[in-house]
């Protein structure tokens, strides 16, 4: 298991298009990947490969999230997704 914390930086948060980009990238990895609001409830763990799960979190700009992966490519998966969030999704 490998995890990292990152802050949502793009102005519109993890809404429609950024969320699509996020799950598309997550789907490229074999590991089981979870995204959760920092300090949030465990029930709120979202499957990072599920668009409806990610949208349900309703993550806005400035919020901290944890990305956690378990599997063969866990480190690469987490690092790639963190990079994507840090890139502000090209906004």
């Amino acid at each position, binding site marked *: 298991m490998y995890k990292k914390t990152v802050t949502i930086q793009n102005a*519109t948060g993890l*809404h429609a298009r950024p969320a*699509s980009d996020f799950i598309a990238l997550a789907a490229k990895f074999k590991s089981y990947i979870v995204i959760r609001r920092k300090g949030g409830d465990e029930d709120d763990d979202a499957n990072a490969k599920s668009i*409806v799960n990610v949208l349900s979190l*309703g993550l806005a700009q400035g919020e901290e999230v944890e990305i956690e992966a378990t599997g063969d490519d866990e480190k690469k998966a987490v690092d790639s997704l963190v990079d994507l969030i840090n890139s502000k999704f090209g906004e």
Partner: protein
Amino acid sequence: MEYQGNPVSEGIAVGKVLRYERFTPKIEEKTLRPEEVEPAVRHYEEARGGAKAELEHIRDSFGAGGEDKKKIITAHLDILMDVAMDEEIRQAIHGKMLPAENAIQKVYSKYIRRIGKAKDALIRERATDMKDVCTRILRNCAGVREQSLAVLPQPVIVFADDLFPSDTASLDRSKVLAIVTEVGGPTSHTAIIARSYEIPALLGVADALRLVADGERVIVDAVDGRLITQPTEEQVRAYEKKRAEFAKKAAETKKYIGIEPVTADGEKIEVELNIGSASVPELQGSKYTTGVGLFRTEFLYMGRDTLPTEEEQYDIYRKVLTEFGDRPVTLRTLDIGGDKKLDCMDLPKEDNPFLGNRALRLCLSHRDLFKTQLRAALRAGTIGNLWIMFPMVGSLDDIRNAKQVVQEVRGDLDREHIPYGKNIKIGIMIEIPSIAMIADLAVKEVDFASIGTNDLCQYTTAADRLNPTVAPYYQSYHPAMFRLIRYVAQEFKKAGKPLCVCGEMGGDKLAMPVLLGFGIRRISMGLASVANVKRILSRLTVARAEELAENVCRQETAADAAAYLKSALADIL
């Protein structure tokens, strides 16, 4: 049999019916027997596979330039193939012994509820996409094929409850002979689309879908507002003839599009264009018009996740101003709220949106948004002949507040040494009775005004123009409408300031002569109405228009006014 309807786009059609119905799933409460579980899972998988194939086919059918539409379809595919929902649906079938339809409905509803409650409007909007996808799988479960107006094997007359922008966006114009719907009035989306596509349309035909069967032959008379089912051979022949005559007259009318807009006795009238997208076909109207009487700027803000930047707006405003050279371009500042919503702004839901924080009110409460648009407009105004107009003005306070913001933006630009237009005219829309009734005071505060007859009618008659139940109360020819317009025209004439009419009445063949009679010399309309308006003008004298105007104000009801105008103008129409 004969039925009445509202002819919102003129024309005649004889042809076969296509009933266009949205699929509504029927799901009964039920649990499976153990041996039914595996077939239910397969049923789900097949339905999902069918839905996937449909979406992929739609996506691939959009050519270049369809990037926005492709994005929407890709979002639908993401939802359809969602791993979490897929797992939950399978669990519901296996664990709770639910049939495929019930499992799909249950899981989708859960997420639609959850996402519909999101704080962010952009996320909430996705609930609508999820509903679309849910209906798509359920329709595949039921084995019902998708109906589309985009691919029609033969010419048809489309019958529907109502048509949504999603239905008309891809409509095959060459195959739709006419449109008949159960709801909708002259300012509805369907009406506007039908007119711009020149498709005859009869709206507000009660129970239209139940009156006809697929493939049966009907006559649509969208001149006199009649639907004829099971016509006799004689009727068909008569209407084929009427259709040919109408087509001939329409072709005849088209010839007038290029003439100078002058009355029979030589009075020059400004015939201006309403535009709403600055697209190439729209700007072609430049050849036939004396300016832009209404440049709707909402399109810049619609169907996108982020607000348009100052530069984006500047580029488009310049494009329109360049096209029209020294002819006036009347730019209406953002007019949203009410019937128009934006993805790029999280606006609270209001109980009475038409009476709420819309248009100028919204701009005054979102100064940054307003200032960005004004900056772009003022900067673009260094070329061409720009007029800026504020919508939804109800008092002198509104005018003064809006002008104050313009002044602040000018100050900002001065400080930043950014050039901007110095001779830009500032005016207002007259669409709230409270401003119409103090036209004598308002005229002193502005350089010009334009009467928006659609909203003026809605606010004068207190009838929501989108609510079909109160459509009979929305009366454009109400004597109060004519009296209000007459008063406004009189005050602007006295002050010597330009007054335009840019609502539906400007392009309306019965109302336009009355406007002329009130002394209005500037009318603005969609390109589709230009030729006919010029034709009517060429046959009308000012004296005759004045007589009409005087008489129409004395009519007792809207129906009286319509009947009077129809008979008084019979030789011209």
